[in-house]
Structures are given as C-alpha cells and as structure tokens.
C-alpha cells in the first residue's frame, strides 16, 4: 500500500527532513508513526499526499510511483487517500453535511448517493444529529470526527492522520482510535502520525519511530514491544 525506497527529502532552505527512508506498509495494515516534532513525521505524510516531492528515492502508493505523477494527476491520487489533520481543516462557512459531502461532490457522485454516504459516514462517527450544524458550533472532538467522516466518506483504501488526537483529552483520543481500529477491521490501511506515547502504548499496532529524519525503530506489535514503557522506547530522543 505504501512503499518508500531510499527516500530522502531536503527542503530548499537546506534542512534535511528525511534521510534514506526504506519502508513498506502492506494493504490493510495499521501503523503509527512517532517521534519528536521535527523528526520527519509530517514530511513522510506530505510525500504520500504529494504536498512535497522527494529529493531522492521513490514513494509508491497503491502501486503508483508518485515520482511519475504529473501535477495534473495529483487530485486523482489524493482522492484515493483520506486525510485527517490535527487542525481538522474544515470549511467553517458550510454545514457539517456539506463538509463531509465535499469529496463526493469532487468525485461527481449523484446527490442521492451523496446523501446516503454522508449520513452513513456521520452515523459512523456518531454525529448524524449534527449534520445541519456548522463546524464552529461543535467541540474539538466533534470537529475531529467530522474531519474523519470527510476522510472516509469516499471509501479510500488508505487513511493518513497527522496528530489526529493532538488537541483532544485522553478519553476523546481513545474514542478516535477506536474509530480507526474499526476502519482497519474492514480492510482500510492507516498511517497515523502521533507523539501521544501513552496512547500508542495502549494500542497494539506496528509503530515506526523516527529521529532526525531516519527510521530508528520499526517495532511490530510483539509481546516484548508491548512491555516496553514508552519513555524507554524513545529514550534516545529524550536525551538529545
């Protein structure tokens, strides 16, 4: 589903965000990407969503080599990726329904089909009763769930989440994670960037640890891994 082959990224200002990353995430897999801010998590996600291009190496998504994608084709690639953001990125001048319907409108669905799918997605995140509200009337957790509904409404095979629980309390975070698990159970691949270590410790999924633009640990969910306390897991980072 996601493949990084010798990927490096150097920003125009000289900052090196990624150094020779090799990574494979299979279809239907759910993985966490963690590390300190500036370790390169966001850059990884930006390369997948074509907001940035790698300086070297190749990123392959759904079997498509992104290096070969022309700017004109970027929208089509993005439609197959559901993206969830820390700051939700909702349109505040439109209703919850319209926000969630946006990907379907872009894809050109029939309006009855849009109604069905949007309500199904809102039902899934427990916000069916709020479809007529505007995002500004919702709490942070609810806004995030609207963002999630928007990301899944088009049934993308891959979900990317950038610090989806960044601004939420532990209880709401756990709720969001349960949603992600449900999506994963029906076969969606997920890559979730998060530095919420206590949350990661509770989740038993593959965890990729980044530091200074390198992948320093690729910890599959083994029993030993589970026993490792999060602080120890990132001990090296904390010292630097």
């Amino acid at each position, binding site marked *: 589903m996601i493949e990084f082959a010798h990927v490096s990224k150097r920003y125009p200002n000289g900052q090196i965000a990624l150094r020779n990353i090799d990574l494979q995430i299979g279809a*239907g897999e759910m993985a966490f990407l963690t590390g300190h801010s500036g370790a390169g998590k966001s850059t990884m996600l930006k390369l997948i969503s074509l907001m940035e291009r790698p300086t070297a190496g190749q990123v392959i998504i759904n079997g498509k080599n992104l290096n070969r994608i022309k700017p004109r084709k970027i929208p089509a690639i*993005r439609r197959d990726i559901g993206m969830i953001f820390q700051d939700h990125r909702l*349109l505040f001048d439109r209703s919850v329904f319209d926000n969630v319907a946006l990907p379907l409108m*872009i894809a*050109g669905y029939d309006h009855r089909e849009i109604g069905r799918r949007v309500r199904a997605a809102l039902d899934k995140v427990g916000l069916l009763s709020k479809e007529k509200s505007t995002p500004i009337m919702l709490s942070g957790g609810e806004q995030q769930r609207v963002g999630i509904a928007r990301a899944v409404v088009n*049934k993308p095979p891959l979900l990317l989440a950038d610090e989806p629980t960044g601004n939420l309390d532990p209880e709401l975070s756990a709720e969001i994670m349960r949603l992600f698990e449900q999506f994963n159970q*029906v076969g969606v691949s997920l890559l979730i960037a998060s530095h919420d270590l206590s949350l990661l410790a509770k989740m038993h999924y593959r965890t990729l640890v980044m530091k200074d633009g390198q992948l320093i640990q690729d910890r599959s969910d083994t029993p030993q891994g589970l026993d490792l306390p999060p602080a120890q897991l990132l001990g090296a980072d904390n010292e630097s």
Partner: protein
Amino acid sequence: MNPDQLTGARLTQGASLKARFKMLIRLHKLEAKRGIQDIFDNPLSNFMTVLVIAIALALPTGLQIMLDNGKQLSQSWDGASRISLFLTLETSKKQTIDLSNKIRQNLAIKNVEVILPDQALKDFSQQSGFVDAIGELDQNPLPPTLVVQPVEAYSTPFESGKLLAIYAKLPQVEKAQLDLDWVRKLYALIQLAEKAAAALGLALGLAVLLIIGNTIRLSVQNRRDEIEIVKLIGATNAFIRRPFLYTGFWYGLFAGISCWLLVEISLFWLQQPIANLAGLYQSDFTLSGLSWSQSIQLISISCGLGLLGSWLSVGRHIRAIEPR
C-alpha cells in the same frame, strides 16, 4: 449501511459517467448560487464594483447611441446629397420638362424637381424681400433648374459624386452642383466619431477586464484556506475555478443590467431638451435609445467580459495556491 460498505478497502471507483454528468449540472447550479452568494455576502463593496463596471460600459454605449442618432439625423437630411442642375438660359420650358423626365427614368434617381425661371424669380423675390429691386430687372436672370435627388443607395458622397459628373456633361446643363463638401465633412466626422467610440470601447473593455480580474483575485486570496483544503481533498483546479467563474459572470450580468438602466435613464432625461431643440428647427426628431437586440448585445458583452476577466485571473491565482 454496514461498516464494510462504508469503508470498503478497495480503490475508489468513482461514479458512473451518467451520474457524473448529472452531478456536474447540479454542481453548476450550486456554484452559480455560491458565486452569487459571494457577491451578496459583501453587498456594499460589490455594488460599487458593479457600478464602476456599469459606468465604464455606459460611456462607449452612450457614444454609440449618439452616433446612431447622428447617422439617423444625417439620413433624414438626405437633401444634402441633392444635385442642382442649372440649365443654360436659352433652354425652353419644354426642353426642361423633357430633360427632367429623362433623368427621372434613371433607377438611381428618386425624384426630380423642376424649377422654372418664373417660379424661381417669384420664390426669390418673396424670400429675399428684394421685390422692388427685382421688379427693376428687364429680364429674368435665373436659369431653369432641376433638383435631382438620388435614391438612398446613391446618396453617399462617392455615388452622388459620380452622378454629378454624368449630369455635368449634358449639353443643356450650364452648371451642376452638389453640396458635396458638407456631406463629406459630415461623413468624415461620423467616421472619426466611430473610430473614437471603438477605441474608447476597447480601452474601457480592457478596464472592465482588469477590474473584474482584480476583484476575483481578491476573492481568491480571501478563500485561500478553503482552496488549500479542497485541494488536499483532491479537487481539481477546474473544480475550484468554477465558482469564481460564476462570480465573474454574475458581475458581468449585474453590471450589464445596471449599464442598461444608466443609459436608459440618461436618455429619458435628455428626451425633453432634445425635443425642445428639435422643435426650434421644425424637426420632429426624437432620440432613439437601445433596441432590444442592442440591449441583449450589451448585456451579453458585459457577461462575456465578466467571464473572461475572471477566467484570466482565477487560473493563475489558483495554481499559485498549494496546500502546505
């Protein structure tokens, strides 16, 4: 809907072609509405924009109307292309009438008026008031005259000039005269005014493009965040462009209608003084305004300029916005 239907983990197939087409029409309706909403969200400043465009369009439109009226007026004065043939003094009455009949047979001639010397003298003495002085004359010095009026197609300076040359060669004709200078001057003036109107129209059309382009640019800047978000969700530039194109179109439509109103109100306002002026010249001339087809033309041009202005502006500015 059960969960696996909701997030079935396969590549999105998108919608069928028919559904896409139906959605496209629906989207166009939505975006047309959104475009108009965009204008009404900010009524005062957008009203002023519309008014500026309307005024810019009203100037060349007004000039065009003046020109059309001027042309009409000059046509109603087709006497200007009347050719006067002064015959030799010894031409008899019968010869004069024969000649007039001969000329009248020419298809290019609408009418020939015969002025016999006696009649001419009578008219002259009445109009000039030199009755006594004329009475002193022992001989009528005035020649028989034919006033030849060509049909409209032969009333242009060029055509009537050709006719003049033909008649001047007739043996009975002493002198053929056409008030050609006056006609030429009028035509030259109208031509100049037409060129000026075209230049003004072009310059102001360009100004309208710039005004709309700039308004749309600001509108794009204001919705920068929104554009970034929909780009992230996979919207194409064409999708993002559409509501802005509609906004441009609506600007054009509103400006066109406002311009039409401005012109009609000004004409109404001028109607009375012009009727007064025409009355002084014993003319029943009235100012004619925009015909239906001209009105539709005006509004279409305005809509076209709105669409073109936003199209020129929006593509460039949307491409410059990339999600970060």
